[in-house]
């Protein structure tokens, strides 16, 4: 018996097909007393297991301010995620361990302008914080969401984005890489739109970003050009993990355990780590 590694059982309450290869699984604890105890902050992750296939690490894509259920958005990318997409139906059970890891610096964000920059499935961890911030809207100043994907079909959370757009206290800017006939919003990669369309004010603004590595790379360059301090840019790191407990050694970057010291890092923190991610 390895007690630290034994999961809790959750039921899949709803599956939402977000894009051709991303589905959101809305989960509920089978044992309600566990649901009471399961509390998390935006940015934390869980170990999600499809029993028989294996365990994977996913961020919690929803906020604890909307309790009762929680979401994991899963892109079909590898062996277990392919099994999840193929085999997991509504009503089925999965194993959940967590929540693990650190979270977005909620205290530091208070009173600040929030600028979310997301790409593709990278919106999932941001969504947790976006929901949290919407539910505590008075704690923050300006609220901007820049979200991009390769094509309009690859945009996640379409219904929720419509809600955000209707919310007068948020500014939502969408972009796709190439023009499409019915697309009326921006066209161009995220960093380009960030500079040309959003052109954010730097003062009193915190940037929270997540997306594919190539997007992150150029977004960081753009942010640098716009004059952002690396301390004010927060991201969440992707690294192979298994235990989530700071034991199995998989997510080590230097002496940092991404699963314990992360996954949320400021750009300043990241620049101090060995170049290995």
């Amino acid at each position, binding site marked *: *018996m*390895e*007690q*630290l*590694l*034994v*999961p809790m*059982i959750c039921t899949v309450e709803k599956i939402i097909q977000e894009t051709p290869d991303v589905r959101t699984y809305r989960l509920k604890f*089978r044992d309600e007393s566990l649901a009471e105890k399961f509390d998390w902050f935006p940015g934390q992750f869980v170990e999600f*297991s499809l*029993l*028989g*296939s*294996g*365990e*994977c690490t996913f961020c919690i894509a929803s906020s604890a301010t909307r309790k009762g259920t929680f979401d994991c958005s899963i*892109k079909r*990318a*590898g*062996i*277990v*995620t392919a099994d999840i997409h193929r085999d997991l139906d509504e009503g089925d*059970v999965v*194993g959940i361990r967590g929540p693990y890891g650190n979270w977005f610096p909620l205290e530091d964000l208070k009173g600040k302008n929030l600028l979310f920059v997301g790409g593709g499935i990278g919106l999932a961890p941001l969504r947790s914080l976006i929901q949290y911030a919407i539910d505590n809207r008075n704690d923050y100043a300006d609220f901007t969401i820049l979200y991009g994907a390769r094509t309009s079909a690859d945009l996640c959370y379409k219904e929720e984005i419509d809600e955000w757009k209707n919310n007068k206290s948020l500014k939502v800017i969408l972009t796709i890489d190439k023009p499409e006939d019915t697309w009326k919003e921006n066209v161009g990669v995220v960093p380009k739109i960030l500079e040309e369309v959003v052109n954010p004010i730097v003062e009193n603004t915190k940037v929270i970003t997540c997306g594919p*590595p190539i997007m992150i790379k150029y977004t960081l360059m753009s942010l640098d050009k716009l004059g952002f301090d690396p301390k004010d840019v927060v991201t969440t790191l*992707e*690294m*192979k993990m*298994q*235990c989530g*407990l*700071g*034991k*199995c*050694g*998989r997510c*080590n*970057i*230097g*002496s940092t355990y991404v699963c*314990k010291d992360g996954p949320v890092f400021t750009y300043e923190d990241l620049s101090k780590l*060995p*170049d*290995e*991610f």
Partner: protein
Amino acid sequence: MNLTTYSTDPAGLQAFYEAIISAHDTYAPVEKFGKFDFTRVDSLSTCNTDSPIPKTMSVKPLFFPKSAKVMKYKATSEGTELTDTEEDPLAGKRVVLGVRHCDARSLQVLDAVYKWDYVDTDYGKRRENTILISTRCNEASTHCFCTSLDYDVEQLDAFDVAVINGLDEKVYLQARTEKGETFLKENATGLAVANGSAQEEMKKQFEKFASSFRLKMDYTEINEKMQGQFDSPEFEDVSSNCVSCNTCAFVCPTCHCFKISDEKLRDEGVRYKSYDSCNNVYFTLMAGGHNPRPVKYRRWRQRAMHKFVYYKERFGVNLCIGCGKCTTSCPVNISIFEVVNKVAK
């Protein structure tokens, strides 16, 4: 608490061992196909408490098994249920004989990672319920360098009872922890308490042992120099012969990386926690194909840097205890001692 030293002779030591085996659940090195493994023993004749270090698997599997069941699960018409696996076979009270200094020290090193933040209670229980009885080496083996690392072999409290050869065929049993003291009080009946000259004799024996080392290094210097060597071109060179068989990590008393895997047959399954190694190409391979360490030298860099820089930064100790087991077992003769000395130039 005063820790007592008892004195006896080789025959008395054998009798002491036999008494322990008959009274306790006892583990000791047992030979199988020319190698030694710590195994549950019923009589002294089946084991070798002085098994040679290079041929002996570390004591690690008694605390961190090669493959442990995490849980079982079963899908029925009423839904899926998790069931406990059978009782932890390693959690009971037990005594381990023939543990070398380096091996015992490795457990102290592992404690750091198992006890930080999320405490591994299974590991903790196995540790707590075990009495470690060490045998002191009389002579260093070809690849040993334990005296070069950041701990005092002479003053080690990593084991509960030390068995030390003195001069003139004398043997001393020395309690090193309170647990060991209590254990000796109960089990060393009939043994005489050693007189004042024992300390002196043990010191002489240690000096003789310490002078038998072929490999010596200054670990503080190595630690310091390694810190700046992330981009060292040497890593490519030192790892070029490696066949990525992972034997080094398997036999290493301090390597503790593991993987979690499922085995399923129809509606039932078992989840395992098993040894893994940073030398595996898939160790950091992510779904979608991204791998931060896709080439061998980067994986070797992780291995060497984790042992001599990162773990030290994090937990204050080196993740290498100088036992030389990896070097002895390596099919292509890669020596961790040579690797770090080359890199830390």
